[in-house]
């Protein structure tokens, strides 16, 4: 009998099991941001408790921060007083408890799921939690990583452990080579379209196959990031040479320590004989660029397909489809390429890493954003990504094309800061959720890859051919 990587990670972190089927697992790393932590800190204070292990915790403000800021910006400069209060609270709580924070002025500030790996704070084999569902991103490093609620944030702060139930094992085998113009975003959107937004509920999903082995760590992060959109709070990839190479490059650990660690990390793979509760094979060579049309990440079609006719679906499904079409201002059998776009957003914890920016810049070189696009913004995921892009001259390509080059944060993925859609505006977005109102009240989101978003910026519409 063999073990899956999830089984191995589980056994490695299991403190105890309870009679009722729950288990207590040890938490190695806890990331915090300003939105889901204030109530947890308040709870700790009320109980007169202190964080169990201070240096397990790393905080950064990302959701509320304005992206139009410069070096002189301070928390006080946040115009929205309610947003400001939340960032002030994080600052205060981190200072009160002595928690390491990359604050709004730090060069290392950024989206928590971008900075974790690039600062070497995400290491293979770790259990990682954060009050944010996209914590699954860190699973790309062979971590047991999952999003938790605020009560659990408090529990982890107080006890360095989490009460959870073991998930079932699922493996998705992505085999083959992708077509020109297709990226990891298309692959994960295609998966969600195939298994649905509840397809992975109750499972830890391992992404495997020749495609996964061949892609970069950045691309693996994009895929694990959106496993939650397929319902799976845990998405992960077995450790290989690419994982280790990335960590070596980004970690500050001493050489002898990292060499010891590597020996352990190499074992963080699924055994050949391991059994999965569910296994799905997907041939990636047939996948086209994907674009979401509706208000759920499973409402996705090929970029050159028509909006599906509701009549071919069951009565129960039809209702949701019709509501989505109504919200998105679409009709049956309409061509995606007929839609006029108003805004373009390149960013979010899904697609704001250097590789994503390079992918978009390649398309934008020497091109101009369409006059019909009112605003095109690119928001690097972190200070480091921004710096790297500026070193490579990528920012110039964006600026010359007519994009706004912004400072790091979650930005228009969820519009808690001023980066929002106005009612009925249509947005080409590299983010992860096309829910109603997600990017702004009555805003219309179409999810796609950085390349497709860049093409949409140039053309003002989804292209018919690539």
């Amino acid at each position, binding site marked *: 009998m063999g073990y899956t990587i999830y089984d191995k990670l589980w056994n490695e972190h299991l*403190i*105890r099991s*309870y009679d*009722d*089927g729950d288990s*207590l697992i*040890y938490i*190695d*790393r806890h990331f915090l941001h300003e*939105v*889901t932590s204030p109530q947890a800190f*308040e*709870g700790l204070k009320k*109980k007169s*408790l202190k964080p*169990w*292990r201070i240096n397990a915790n790393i905080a950064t403000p990302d959701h*509320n921060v304005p992206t139009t800021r410069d070096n002189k910006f301070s928390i006080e400069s946040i115009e*929205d007083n*309610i*947003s400001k209060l939340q960032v002030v609270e994080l600052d205060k709580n981190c200072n009160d408890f002595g928690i390491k924070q990359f604050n709004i002025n730090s060069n290392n500030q950024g989206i928590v799921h971008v900075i974790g790996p690039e600062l070497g704070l995400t*290491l293979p084999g770790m259990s990682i939690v954060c*009050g*944010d*569902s996209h914590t699954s991103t860190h699973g790309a490093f062979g971590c047991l990583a*999952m*999003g*938790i*609620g*605020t*009560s*659990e944030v408090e*529990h982890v702060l*107080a*006890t*360095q452990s989490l009460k959870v139930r073991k998930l079932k094992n699922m493996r998705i085998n992505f085999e083959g080579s992708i077509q020109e113009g297709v990226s990891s975003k298309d692959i994960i959107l295609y998966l969600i379209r195939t298994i649905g*937004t*509840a397809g992975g*509920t109750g499972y830890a999903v391992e992404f495997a196959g020749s495609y996964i082995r061949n892609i970069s760590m950045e691309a693996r992060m994009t895929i694990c990031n959106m496993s939650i959109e397929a*319902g799976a709070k845990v998405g992960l990839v077995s450790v290989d040479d690419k994982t280790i190479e990335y960590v070596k490059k980004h970690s500050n*650990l001493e050489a002898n*320590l990292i060499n*010891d*660690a590597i020996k*352990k990390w190499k074992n963080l793979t699924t055994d050949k004989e391991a059994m999965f509760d569910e296994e799905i094979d997907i041939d990636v060579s047939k996948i086209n660029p994907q674009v979401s049309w509706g208000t759920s990440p*499973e409402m996705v079609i090929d970029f050159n397909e028509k909006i599906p006719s509701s009549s071919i679906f069951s009565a*129960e499904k039809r*209702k*949701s489809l019709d*509501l989505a079409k109504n919200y998105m201002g679409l009709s049956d059998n309409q061509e995606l390429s007929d839609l006029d776009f108003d805004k373009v957003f390149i960013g979010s914890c899904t697609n704001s890493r250097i590789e994503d920016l390079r992918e978009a810049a390649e398309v934008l070189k020497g091109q101009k954003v369409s006059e019909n696009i009112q605003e095109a913004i690119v928001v690097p995921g972190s200070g480091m990504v921004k710096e790297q892009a500026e070193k490579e001259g990528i920012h110039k390509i964006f600026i010359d094309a007519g994009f706004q080059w912004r400072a790091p944060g979650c930005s228009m993925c*969820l*519009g*808690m800061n001023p980066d929002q859609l106005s*009612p009925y505006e249509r947005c080409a977005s590299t983010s992860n*959720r096309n*829910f*109603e*109102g997600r990017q702004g*009240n*009555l805003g219309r989101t179409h999810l796609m890859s950085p390349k497709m978003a860049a093409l949409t910026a140039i053309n003002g519409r989804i292209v018919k051919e690539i």
Partner: protein
Amino acid sequence: MKDFIEGIVAPIDRDNIDTDQIIPTEYLKSIKKFGYEDYLFDGWRYKDQGRLGMKKGERKINHEFILNNSPYDESKVLLTRDNFGCGSSREHAVWALRDFGIEVVLASSFGDIFYNNCFKNGVLPLKLKKTEIEKLFSLSTDSPVSISVNIKDKVILFKDKLSIDFDLDNNLAERIIYGLDEIDITLKDSELIKKFEEHRKENNPWIFE
């Protein structure tokens, strides 16, 4: 102790209701754990765009939305379909349901993180079979009905017309019934956690750098 809940069923006939619908991001700017009742299903409940701090009385009400109409404005039970609470991990979604007065959510499936969050806040999410959900929709759609949920006996009752047994782990049932503080319970295992931690540090020192 809360082992019996009785209340009016508010049917919302949609699947995949995500936590952004249950409470939009604007209201996540609050640093409090209470006071979210006026923002539940904000995008559907109102015809204007709200801001944190605005009260129901200041808003343009959408009278077509069920929870705005009597007696559904006092519903304790929400009836919906597949994958309720998918998406973001925001516990504010549960706080908004709780603050509005919803004590039970009936659905054929739930988002994993939302499901966990419910039990920390005394909101009972019950997974029922699709046929049972269908039956409840047909019962509650035309006129208001009040059902009872007996958590100890694990049964939903509506007069003599309906009786649905549900599965619920005893520990989860107890969390709703007694509202136990999980941190206190876990801290009883402090010694165990400490020992585990020491052992882990010895074998994986790089994690503790």
